[in-house]
Protein backbone atom coordinates (compact mmCIF):
# COMPACT_ATOMS: atom_id res chain seq x y z
CA UNK A 1 0.00 0.00 0.00
CA UNK A 2 1.23 3.49 -0.88
CA UNK A 3 -0.37 5.72 1.69
CA UNK A 4 -0.68 9.47 1.67
CA UNK A 5 -2.30 11.99 3.94
CA UNK A 6 -4.46 14.72 2.50
CA UNK A 7 -5.17 17.69 4.73
CA UNK A 8 -7.62 20.51 4.20
CA UNK A 9 -7.34 23.63 6.32
CA UNK A 10 -9.39 26.81 6.16
CA UNK A 11 -12.80 28.35 6.72
CA UNK A 12 -15.59 25.77 6.50
CA UNK A 13 -17.39 25.86 3.12
CA UNK A 14 -20.00 23.64 1.47
CA UNK A 15 -18.66 20.88 -0.72
CA UNK A 16 -15.13 20.44 0.59
CA UNK A 17 -15.38 16.70 1.10
CA UNK A 18 -17.52 16.16 -2.01
CA UNK A 19 -15.10 17.92 -4.34
CA UNK A 20 -12.02 16.26 -2.90
CA UNK A 21 -13.63 12.83 -2.85
CA UNK A 22 -14.92 13.19 -6.42
CA UNK A 23 -11.43 14.02 -7.63
CA UNK A 24 -9.95 11.08 -5.75
CA UNK A 25 -12.56 8.66 -7.12
CA UNK A 26 -11.89 9.87 -10.65
CA UNK A 27 -8.17 9.36 -10.07
CA UNK A 28 -8.65 5.85 -8.65
CA UNK A 29 -7.38 6.84 -5.21
CA UNK A 30 -9.01 4.88 -2.38
CA UNK A 31 -10.01 6.74 0.80
CA UNK A 32 -9.15 4.66 3.90
CA UNK A 33 -10.18 7.07 6.62
CA UNK A 34 -11.59 10.56 7.08
CA UNK A 35 -11.59 12.67 10.21
CA UNK A 36 -12.16 16.32 10.92
CA UNK A 37 -11.92 18.83 13.70
CA UNK A 38 -12.08 22.57 14.29
CA UNK A 39 -8.97 24.25 15.71
CA UNK A 40 -9.10 27.95 16.52
CA UNK A 41 -12.06 28.54 14.17
CA UNK A 42 -10.28 26.74 11.36
CA UNK A 43 -11.74 23.66 9.78
CA UNK A 44 -9.22 20.82 9.61
CA UNK A 45 -9.91 17.69 7.65
CA UNK A 46 -7.63 14.75 7.13
CA UNK A 47 -7.97 11.86 4.71
CA UNK A 48 -5.78 8.80 4.70
CA UNK A 49 -5.67 7.51 1.14
CA UNK A 50 -4.15 4.63 -0.78
CA UNK A 51 -2.36 5.64 -3.98
CA UNK A 52 -1.30 2.19 -5.12
CA UNK A 53 -3.94 1.92 -7.87
CA UNK A 54 -3.74 5.41 -9.32
CA UNK A 55 -1.88 6.00 -12.57
CA UNK A 56 -1.33 9.67 -11.82
CA UNK A 57 2.13 10.76 -10.66
CA UNK A 58 2.33 11.96 -7.05
CA UNK A 59 3.29 15.49 -8.12
CA UNK A 60 0.18 15.78 -10.30
CA UNK A 61 -2.11 14.76 -7.45
CA UNK A 62 -0.43 17.30 -5.17
CA UNK A 63 -0.90 20.03 -7.77
CA UNK A 64 -4.52 19.09 -8.60
CA UNK A 65 -5.58 18.99 -4.96
CA UNK A 66 -3.88 22.28 -4.30
CA UNK A 67 -5.83 23.80 -7.22
CA UNK A 68 -9.15 22.42 -5.88
CA UNK A 69 -8.28 24.02 -2.54
CA UNK A 70 -7.50 27.36 -4.16
CA UNK A 71 -10.92 27.41 -5.85
CA UNK A 72 -12.59 26.98 -2.45
CA UNK A 73 -10.24 29.33 -0.61
CA UNK A 74 -8.67 26.48 1.33
CA UNK A 75 -5.23 25.01 1.73
CA UNK A 76 -5.17 21.41 0.53
CA UNK A 77 -1.95 19.44 0.93
CA UNK A 78 -1.07 15.88 0.04
CA UNK A 79 1.97 14.31 1.70
CA UNK A 80 3.35 10.81 1.83
CA UNK A 81 2.27 9.30 5.14
CA UNK A 82 5.76 8.26 6.28
CA UNK A 83 6.61 11.74 7.51
CA UNK A 84 3.81 11.52 10.08
CA UNK A 85 4.38 7.87 10.95
CA UNK A 86 8.09 8.41 11.54
CA UNK A 87 7.55 11.47 13.68
CA UNK A 88 4.79 10.07 15.87
CA UNK A 89 5.37 6.30 15.99
CA UNK A 90 8.49 4.65 17.40
Amino acid sequence: MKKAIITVVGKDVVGIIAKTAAYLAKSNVNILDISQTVVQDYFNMMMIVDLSKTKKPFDAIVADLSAIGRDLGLEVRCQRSEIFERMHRV
Partner: protein
Amino acid sequence: MISGNFRKAMINISEVIETNKMILEENLDVRTITMGISLLDCADSSLEKTCGNIYTKLMRLAKDLVRTGDDIGREFGIPVVNKRISITPAAIVGSACCKKPADFVKIAKTLDRAAKKLGVNFIGGYSAIVSKGMTPADELLIRSIPRAMACTERLCSSVNVGSTKTGIDMDAVRLMGDIIKETARLTKDNDSLGCAKLVVLCNAPDDNPFMAGAFHGVSEGDCVVNVGVSGPGVVNHVLKSIRGASFEVLCETIKRTAFKITRVGQLVAQEAAKRLGVPFGIIDLSLAPTPAVGDSVADILREIGLEHPGAPGTTAALALLNDQVKKGGVMASSYVGGLSGAFIPVSEDQGMIDAVDAGALTIEKLEAMTCVCSVGLDMIAIPGDTPASSIAGIIADEAAIGMVNQKTTAVRVIPVAGKKVGDTVEFGGLLGHAPVMRVSPFSCEAMVGRGGRIPAPIHSFKN
Protein backbone atom coordinates in the same frame (compact mmCIF):
# COMPACT_ATOMS: atom_id res chain seq x y z
CA MET B 1 -11.93 -3.96 5.16
CA ILE B 2 -9.34 -2.49 7.50
CA SER B 3 -7.71 -4.80 10.02
CA GLY B 4 -7.45 -4.03 13.72
CA ASN B 5 -3.65 -3.73 13.61
CA PHE B 6 -3.75 -1.26 10.79
CA ARG B 7 -6.26 0.87 12.69
CA LYS B 8 -4.01 0.98 15.70
CA ALA B 9 -1.05 2.20 13.69
CA MET B 10 -3.03 4.82 11.85
CA ILE B 11 -2.03 8.41 12.29
CA ASN B 12 -4.64 10.65 13.85
CA ILE B 13 -5.62 14.15 12.91
CA SER B 14 -3.98 15.88 15.86
CA GLU B 15 -0.64 14.32 14.97
CA VAL B 16 -1.02 15.44 11.38
CA ILE B 17 -1.90 18.95 12.48
CA GLU B 18 1.08 19.02 14.84
CA THR B 19 3.54 18.01 12.10
CA ASN B 20 2.17 20.44 9.56
CA LYS B 21 2.14 23.27 12.08
CA MET B 22 5.83 22.62 12.71
CA ILE B 23 6.51 22.85 8.98
CA LEU B 24 4.20 25.72 8.06
CA GLU B 25 4.43 27.95 11.13
CA GLU B 26 7.54 26.99 13.07
CA ASN B 27 10.08 26.71 10.24
CA LEU B 28 10.74 22.98 10.55
CA ASP B 29 12.84 21.99 7.60
CA VAL B 30 15.59 19.72 6.45
CA ARG B 31 18.42 22.21 6.38
CA THR B 32 20.72 20.41 4.02
CA ILE B 33 21.30 17.24 2.08
CA THR B 34 25.04 17.21 1.57
CA MET B 35 26.63 14.70 -0.75
CA GLY B 36 30.16 13.84 0.31
CA ILE B 37 32.35 12.93 -2.66
CA SER B 38 35.90 11.61 -2.52
CA LEU B 39 38.18 13.26 -5.08
CA LEU B 40 41.23 11.18 -4.15
CA ASP B 41 41.01 9.28 -7.43
CA CYS B 42 41.00 12.57 -9.38
CA ALA B 43 44.57 13.49 -8.43
CA ASP B 44 47.06 13.64 -11.29
CA SER B 45 50.46 15.27 -11.77
CA SER B 46 48.90 17.47 -14.47
CA LEU B 47 46.76 20.35 -13.19
CA GLU B 48 44.56 20.30 -16.30
CA LYS B 49 43.88 16.60 -15.92
CA THR B 50 43.15 16.94 -12.19
CA CYS B 51 40.62 19.71 -12.83
CA GLY B 52 39.05 17.68 -15.65
CA ASN B 53 38.78 14.60 -13.46
CA ILE B 54 37.23 16.61 -10.62
CA TYR B 55 34.61 18.19 -12.85
CA THR B 56 33.70 14.87 -14.48
CA LYS B 57 33.36 13.04 -11.18
CA LEU B 58 31.22 15.74 -9.56
CA MET B 59 28.94 15.82 -12.60
CA ARG B 60 28.61 12.05 -12.62
CA LEU B 61 27.79 11.56 -8.94
CA ALA B 62 25.81 14.68 -8.11
CA LYS B 63 23.81 15.21 -11.30
CA ASP B 64 20.52 14.19 -9.63
CA LEU B 65 21.19 15.67 -6.20
CA VAL B 66 19.18 18.89 -6.49
CA ARG B 67 16.24 17.28 -8.29
CA THR B 68 16.12 14.42 -5.77
CA GLY B 69 16.14 16.84 -2.83
CA ASP B 70 13.32 18.86 -4.37
CA ASP B 71 11.29 15.73 -5.20
CA ILE B 72 11.55 14.44 -1.64
CA GLY B 73 10.60 17.85 -0.28
CA ARG B 74 7.46 17.94 -2.43
CA GLU B 75 6.38 14.38 -1.65
CA PHE B 76 6.74 14.68 2.12
CA GLY B 77 5.64 18.27 2.21
CA ILE B 78 8.72 19.54 4.02
CA PRO B 79 11.24 22.05 2.63
CA VAL B 80 14.65 20.60 1.85
CA VAL B 81 16.34 23.97 1.96
CA ASN B 82 19.88 23.34 0.74
CA LYS B 83 21.49 20.78 -1.50
CA ARG B 84 25.25 20.82 -1.15
CA ILE B 85 28.45 18.95 -1.87
CA SER B 86 31.47 18.31 0.30
CA ILE B 87 34.73 17.04 -1.18
CA THR B 88 38.05 15.58 -0.08
CA PRO B 89 40.22 18.41 1.31
CA ALA B 90 41.52 20.10 -1.84
CA ALA B 91 45.05 20.39 -0.43
CA ILE B 92 45.33 16.59 -0.69
CA VAL B 93 43.72 16.34 -4.13
CA GLY B 94 45.98 19.04 -5.55
CA SER B 95 49.19 18.09 -3.79
CA ALA B 96 50.74 16.37 -6.83
CA CYS B 97 49.95 19.06 -9.39
CA CYS B 98 49.85 22.42 -7.62
CA LYS B 99 53.20 24.20 -7.47
CA LYS B 100 51.98 27.69 -6.58
CA PRO B 101 48.87 29.23 -4.96
CA ALA B 102 47.51 30.19 -8.40
CA ASP B 103 47.36 26.49 -9.33
CA PHE B 104 45.03 25.85 -6.40
CA VAL B 105 42.88 28.79 -7.51
CA LYS B 106 42.30 26.90 -10.77
CA ILE B 107 40.92 23.98 -8.75
CA ALA B 108 38.77 26.46 -6.83
CA LYS B 109 37.31 27.80 -10.07
CA THR B 110 36.64 24.26 -11.31
CA LEU B 111 34.75 23.45 -8.12
CA ASP B 112 32.73 26.66 -8.34
CA ARG B 113 31.87 25.99 -11.96
CA ALA B 114 30.70 22.47 -11.09
CA ALA B 115 28.59 23.79 -8.19
CA LYS B 116 26.85 26.29 -10.47
CA LYS B 117 26.23 23.70 -13.18
CA LEU B 118 24.78 21.25 -10.63
CA GLY B 119 22.65 23.92 -8.95
CA VAL B 120 23.99 23.28 -5.44
CA ASN B 121 24.28 26.44 -3.35
CA PHE B 122 27.61 25.59 -1.72
CA ILE B 123 30.49 23.22 -2.28
CA GLY B 124 32.76 22.72 0.74
CA GLY B 125 36.18 21.20 1.07
CA TYR B 126 38.56 23.84 -0.20
CA SER B 127 40.38 22.75 2.89
CA ALA B 128 43.62 21.76 4.53
CA ILE B 129 43.95 19.53 7.59
CA VAL B 130 47.03 20.82 9.34
CA SER B 131 46.43 19.93 12.98
CA LYS B 132 50.06 18.94 13.48
CA GLY B 133 51.90 20.48 10.58
CA MET B 134 51.59 21.80 7.05
CA THR B 135 52.83 20.04 3.92
CA PRO B 136 54.02 22.37 1.14
CA ALA B 137 50.68 21.72 -0.63
CA ASP B 138 48.73 22.57 2.54
CA GLU B 139 50.53 25.87 2.81
CA LEU B 140 50.02 26.65 -0.89
CA LEU B 141 46.30 25.99 -0.53
CA ILE B 142 46.05 28.16 2.56
CA ARG B 143 47.90 30.98 0.81
CA SER B 144 45.53 30.66 -2.15
CA ILE B 145 42.37 31.03 -0.03
CA PRO B 146 41.98 34.84 -0.31
CA ARG B 147 42.18 34.75 -4.12
CA ALA B 148 40.01 31.64 -4.32
CA MET B 149 37.33 33.25 -2.16
CA ALA B 150 37.48 36.44 -4.20
CA CYS B 151 36.93 34.76 -7.56
CA THR B 152 34.30 32.15 -6.63
CA GLU B 153 30.71 32.37 -5.42
CA ARG B 154 29.74 29.02 -3.99
CA LEU B 155 33.02 27.66 -2.69
CA CYS B 156 33.54 27.19 1.06
CA SER B 157 36.93 26.85 2.66
CA SER B 158 38.08 25.46 5.98
CA VAL B 159 41.37 24.85 7.72
CA ASN B 160 41.72 22.47 10.66
CA VAL B 161 44.51 23.81 12.84
CA GLY B 162 44.40 21.50 15.83
CA SER B 163 43.02 18.43 17.52
CA THR B 164 42.88 16.80 20.93
CA LYS B 165 45.33 14.12 19.75
CA THR B 166 47.86 16.39 18.06
CA GLY B 167 47.73 19.75 19.80
CA ILE B 168 47.55 23.05 17.92
CA ASP B 169 49.69 24.05 14.96
CA MET B 170 50.41 27.63 15.97
CA ASP B 171 52.23 28.38 12.70
CA ALA B 172 48.98 27.64 10.88
CA VAL B 173 47.01 29.68 13.43
CA ARG B 174 49.29 32.68 12.89
CA LEU B 175 49.06 32.28 9.14
CA MET B 176 45.25 32.09 9.28
CA GLY B 177 45.17 35.47 11.02
CA ASP B 178 46.81 36.96 7.92
CA ILE B 179 44.72 34.89 5.51
CA ILE B 180 41.44 36.04 7.07
CA LYS B 181 42.57 39.67 6.87
CA GLU B 182 43.64 39.26 3.25
CA THR B 183 40.37 37.52 2.35
CA ALA B 184 38.49 40.43 3.92
CA ARG B 185 40.55 42.88 1.87
CA LEU B 186 40.08 41.08 -1.44
CA THR B 187 36.31 40.83 -0.93
CA LYS B 188 35.88 44.30 0.60
CA ASP B 189 33.41 45.37 -2.09
CA ASN B 190 30.98 42.80 -0.70
CA ASP B 191 31.42 43.64 3.00
CA SER B 192 34.28 41.12 3.16
CA LEU B 193 31.86 38.30 2.33
CA GLY B 194 34.74 35.93 1.53
CA CYS B 195 35.36 35.51 5.28
CA ALA B 196 31.78 34.25 5.76
CA LYS B 197 32.74 31.23 3.66
CA LEU B 198 35.99 30.53 5.50
CA VAL B 199 36.21 28.77 8.84
CA VAL B 200 39.12 27.71 11.04
CA LEU B 201 38.45 24.53 13.02
CA CYS B 202 39.84 22.33 15.76
CA ASN B 203 38.77 18.66 15.88
CA ALA B 204 36.91 19.05 12.57
CA PRO B 205 34.63 16.07 11.88
CA ASP B 206 35.03 14.19 8.57
CA ASP B 207 31.30 14.01 7.91
CA ASN B 208 29.91 17.45 8.70
CA PRO B 209 27.14 18.43 6.25
CA PHE B 210 27.00 22.10 7.34
CA MET B 211 28.93 24.91 5.67
CA ALA B 212 31.39 26.51 5.75
CA GLY B 213 33.22 23.66 7.52
CA ALA B 214 31.97 20.73 5.44
CA PHE B 215 34.55 18.48 3.80
CA HIS B 216 34.60 14.80 2.90
CA GLY B 217 37.32 13.37 5.13
CA VAL B 218 39.77 10.70 4.06
CA SER B 219 38.17 8.25 6.51
CA GLU B 220 34.99 8.31 4.39
CA GLY B 221 33.94 6.07 1.50
CA ASP B 222 33.74 7.17 -2.12
CA CYS B 223 30.35 8.86 -1.92
CA VAL B 224 27.89 9.34 0.92
CA VAL B 225 24.77 11.30 1.79
CA ASN B 226 24.74 13.30 5.05
CA VAL B 227 21.75 15.25 6.25
CA GLY B 228 21.50 18.22 8.59
CA VAL B 229 18.16 18.75 10.28
CA SER B 230 17.05 21.85 12.05
CA GLY B 231 14.14 23.31 13.92
CA PRO B 232 14.90 25.90 16.60
CA GLY B 233 11.46 27.41 15.92
CA VAL B 234 9.78 24.12 16.82
CA VAL B 235 11.67 23.84 20.11
CA ASN B 236 10.95 27.46 20.94
CA HIS B 237 7.25 27.04 20.25
CA VAL B 238 6.84 23.96 22.40
CA LEU B 239 8.71 25.62 25.29
CA LYS B 240 6.15 28.44 25.26
CA SER B 241 3.55 25.91 26.38
CA ILE B 242 5.54 24.95 29.51
CA ARG B 243 6.64 28.34 30.82
CA GLY B 244 7.79 28.21 34.44
CA ALA B 245 7.97 24.40 34.54
CA SER B 246 10.85 22.65 36.31
CA PHE B 247 14.11 21.68 34.64
CA GLU B 248 12.90 18.09 34.47
CA VAL B 249 9.88 19.08 32.38
CA LEU B 250 11.98 21.52 30.34
CA CYS B 251 14.58 18.90 29.47
CA GLU B 252 12.06 16.16 28.70
CA THR B 253 10.18 18.52 26.41
CA ILE B 254 13.28 19.52 24.44
CA LYS B 255 14.32 15.88 24.17
CA ARG B 256 10.94 14.76 22.84
CA THR B 257 10.89 17.59 20.32
CA ALA B 258 14.44 16.86 19.15
CA PHE B 259 13.41 13.24 18.67
CA LYS B 260 10.50 14.21 16.41
CA ILE B 261 12.59 16.61 14.36
CA THR B 262 15.37 14.08 13.89
CA ARG B 263 13.01 11.30 12.83
CA VAL B 264 12.04 13.45 9.86
CA GLY B 265 15.70 13.98 9.03
CA GLN B 266 16.36 10.26 9.21
CA LEU B 267 13.44 9.57 6.85
CA VAL B 268 14.65 12.15 4.34
CA ALA B 269 18.25 10.92 4.58
CA GLN B 270 17.29 7.30 3.94
CA GLU B 271 15.03 8.28 1.08
CA ALA B 272 17.71 10.49 -0.49
CA ALA B 273 20.35 7.77 -0.13
CA LYS B 274 18.06 5.19 -1.74
CA ARG B 275 17.10 7.39 -4.68
CA LEU B 276 20.66 8.55 -5.33
CA GLY B 277 22.03 5.03 -4.97
CA VAL B 278 24.57 6.21 -2.41
CA PRO B 279 25.10 5.02 1.20
CA PHE B 280 23.51 7.02 4.00
CA GLY B 281 26.25 8.53 6.15
CA ILE B 282 25.01 10.46 9.17
CA ILE B 283 22.39 12.78 10.51
CA ASP B 284 23.73 15.97 11.99
CA LEU B 285 21.43 16.79 14.91
CA SER B 286 21.70 20.51 14.92
CA LEU B 287 19.60 23.45 15.90
CA ALA B 288 20.70 25.74 13.09
CA PRO B 289 19.05 29.16 13.12
CA THR B 290 18.27 31.34 10.11
CA PRO B 291 17.61 35.07 9.98
CA ALA B 292 13.85 34.29 9.62
CA VAL B 293 11.82 35.51 12.57
CA GLY B 294 11.18 32.66 15.03
CA ASP B 295 13.92 30.43 13.61
CA SER B 296 16.29 31.36 16.40
CA VAL B 297 18.39 29.59 19.03
CA ALA B 298 18.57 32.88 20.96
CA ASP B 299 14.77 32.83 21.26
CA ILE B 300 14.98 29.39 22.90
CA LEU B 301 17.47 30.74 25.42
CA ARG B 302 15.06 33.60 26.13
CA GLU B 303 12.19 31.15 26.48
CA ILE B 304 14.25 29.16 28.99
CA GLY B 305 14.27 32.33 31.06
CA LEU B 306 17.03 34.74 30.01
CA GLU B 307 16.30 38.36 29.21
CA HIS B 308 18.88 38.14 26.43
CA PRO B 309 21.54 35.59 25.49
CA GLY B 310 24.64 36.81 27.28
CA ALA B 311 22.89 37.29 30.61
CA PRO B 312 24.26 35.31 33.59
CA GLY B 313 22.99 31.75 33.23
CA THR B 314 23.40 31.70 29.45
CA THR B 315 26.14 29.06 29.44
CA ALA B 316 24.07 26.75 31.68
CA ALA B 317 20.94 27.21 29.56
CA LEU B 318 22.88 26.50 26.38
CA ALA B 319 24.56 23.46 27.93
CA LEU B 320 21.26 21.86 28.84
CA LEU B 321 19.72 22.72 25.48
CA ASN B 322 22.65 21.20 23.60
CA ASP B 323 22.61 18.05 25.70
CA GLN B 324 18.87 17.45 25.40
CA VAL B 325 19.00 17.94 21.62
CA LYS B 326 21.62 15.20 21.44
CA LYS B 327 19.80 12.89 23.84
CA GLY B 328 16.55 13.19 21.91
CA GLY B 329 18.14 13.02 18.49
CA VAL B 330 20.44 10.07 19.05
CA MET B 331 17.58 7.63 19.47
CA ALA B 332 15.84 8.95 16.39
CA SER B 333 18.67 8.20 13.99
CA SER B 334 20.70 5.12 13.17
CA TYR B 335 23.90 7.12 12.63
CA VAL B 336 24.68 10.46 14.17
CA GLY B 337 27.71 12.58 13.33
CA GLY B 338 28.84 15.94 12.06
CA LEU B 339 28.64 18.83 14.48
CA SER B 340 25.40 17.81 16.24
CA GLY B 341 24.39 20.51 18.68
CA ALA B 342 23.03 24.03 18.92
CA PHE B 343 24.64 26.56 16.59
CA ILE B 344 25.13 30.10 17.82
CA PRO B 345 26.06 32.15 14.76
CA VAL B 346 25.49 35.83 15.38
CA SER B 347 24.55 37.16 11.95
CA GLU B 348 22.26 34.24 11.12
CA ASP B 349 20.10 34.56 14.24
CA GLN B 350 17.94 37.64 14.78
CA GLY B 351 17.81 36.99 18.53
CA MET B 352 21.61 36.99 18.74
CA ILE B 353 21.79 40.22 16.75
CA ASP B 354 19.26 41.82 19.13
CA ALA B 355 21.33 40.65 22.11
CA VAL B 356 24.48 42.26 20.67
CA ASP B 357 22.58 45.47 19.89
CA ALA B 358 21.25 45.51 23.46
CA GLY B 359 24.80 45.23 24.80
CA ALA B 360 24.07 41.84 26.39
CA LEU B 361 26.37 39.70 24.30
CA THR B 362 30.12 40.08 23.84
CA ILE B 363 32.74 37.97 22.09
CA GLU B 364 34.07 36.92 25.50
CA LYS B 365 30.64 35.58 26.56
CA LEU B 366 30.22 33.88 23.20
CA GLU B 367 33.57 32.21 23.78
CA ALA B 368 32.32 30.80 27.08
CA MET B 369 29.16 29.58 25.33
CA THR B 370 31.24 27.70 22.75
CA CYS B 371 32.60 25.49 25.55
CA VAL B 372 29.21 23.78 25.87
CA CYS B 373 27.68 23.84 22.40
CA SER B 374 28.28 23.08 18.80
CA VAL B 375 31.14 24.73 16.94
CA GLY B 376 32.26 28.15 18.07
CA LEU B 377 32.61 31.84 17.33
CA ASP B 378 30.49 31.89 14.24
CA MET B 379 29.58 34.64 11.81
CA ILE B 380 30.86 37.46 13.96
CA ALA B 381 31.69 40.76 12.29
CA ILE B 382 34.66 42.54 13.86
CA PRO B 383 36.33 45.86 13.03
CA GLY B 384 38.29 45.89 9.78
CA ASP B 385 41.39 47.22 11.52
CA THR B 386 41.62 44.27 13.96
CA PRO B 387 45.28 43.13 13.80
CA ALA B 388 45.95 39.73 12.19
CA SER B 389 47.66 38.71 15.43
CA SER B 390 44.47 39.34 17.43
CA ILE B 391 42.47 37.21 14.99
CA ALA B 392 45.11 34.50 15.42
CA GLY B 393 44.74 34.87 19.18
CA ILE B 394 40.96 34.40 18.93
CA ILE B 395 41.55 31.28 16.81
CA ALA B 396 44.09 29.96 19.32
CA ASP B 397 41.63 30.45 22.20
CA GLU B 398 38.85 28.58 20.43
CA ALA B 399 41.20 25.80 19.29
CA ALA B 400 42.40 25.42 22.88
CA ILE B 401 38.80 25.03 24.09
CA GLY B 402 38.24 22.34 21.48
CA MET B 403 41.54 20.59 22.12
CA VAL B 404 41.15 20.39 25.89
CA ASN B 405 37.43 19.55 25.88
CA GLN B 406 37.62 16.99 23.06
CA LYS B 407 35.05 18.80 20.99
CA THR B 408 34.83 20.57 17.67
CA THR B 409 35.35 24.31 17.84
CA ALA B 410 35.63 26.87 15.09
CA VAL B 411 36.14 30.51 14.28
CA ARG B 412 34.37 32.29 11.47
CA VAL B 413 34.98 35.99 12.02
CA ILE B 414 34.69 38.71 9.42
CA PRO B 415 37.03 41.68 9.87
CA VAL B 416 34.93 43.91 7.67
CA ALA B 417 37.12 46.27 5.68
CA GLY B 418 36.39 49.89 6.56
CA LYS B 419 33.86 49.10 9.32
CA LYS B 420 34.11 49.83 13.04
CA VAL B 421 32.23 48.87 16.22
CA GLY B 422 28.58 49.95 15.96
CA ASP B 423 28.38 49.62 12.18
CA THR B 424 26.19 46.95 10.59
CA VAL B 425 27.14 44.56 7.82
CA GLU B 426 24.70 43.03 5.35
CA PHE B 427 25.61 39.58 3.98
CA GLY B 428 22.18 38.70 2.61
CA GLY B 429 20.24 35.45 2.41
CA LEU B 430 20.98 32.73 4.94
CA LEU B 431 24.11 34.58 6.08
CA GLY B 432 22.03 37.45 7.45
CA HIS B 433 23.35 40.73 8.79
CA ALA B 434 25.59 41.52 11.73
CA PRO B 435 26.55 44.33 14.07
CA VAL B 436 30.33 44.84 14.21
CA MET B 437 31.49 43.60 17.64
CA ARG B 438 34.27 44.83 19.86
CA VAL B 439 37.55 42.89 20.02
CA SER B 440 39.87 43.30 23.01
CA PRO B 441 42.38 46.02 22.08
CA PHE B 442 45.21 44.35 24.01
CA SER B 443 47.92 42.67 21.96
CA CYS B 444 48.88 38.99 21.76
CA GLU B 445 51.44 39.60 19.00
CA ALA B 446 54.39 38.24 20.97
CA MET B 447 52.49 35.09 21.95
CA VAL B 448 51.18 34.08 18.52
CA GLY B 449 54.45 35.05 16.91
CA ARG B 450 56.44 32.40 18.77
CA GLY B 451 56.12 29.73 16.07
CA GLY B 452 55.82 25.97 16.44
CA ARG B 453 52.94 24.11 18.02
CA ILE B 454 51.15 23.67 21.30
CA PRO B 455 51.57 20.05 22.47
CA ALA B 456 48.60 17.72 22.80
CA PRO B 457 46.98 17.91 26.24
CA ILE B 458 47.13 15.21 28.86
CA HIS B 459 43.94 13.16 29.18
CA SER B 460 44.20 12.34 32.81
CA PHE B 461 43.84 14.51 35.93
CA LYS B 462 40.61 16.00 34.55
CA ASN B 463 40.16 19.35 36.23
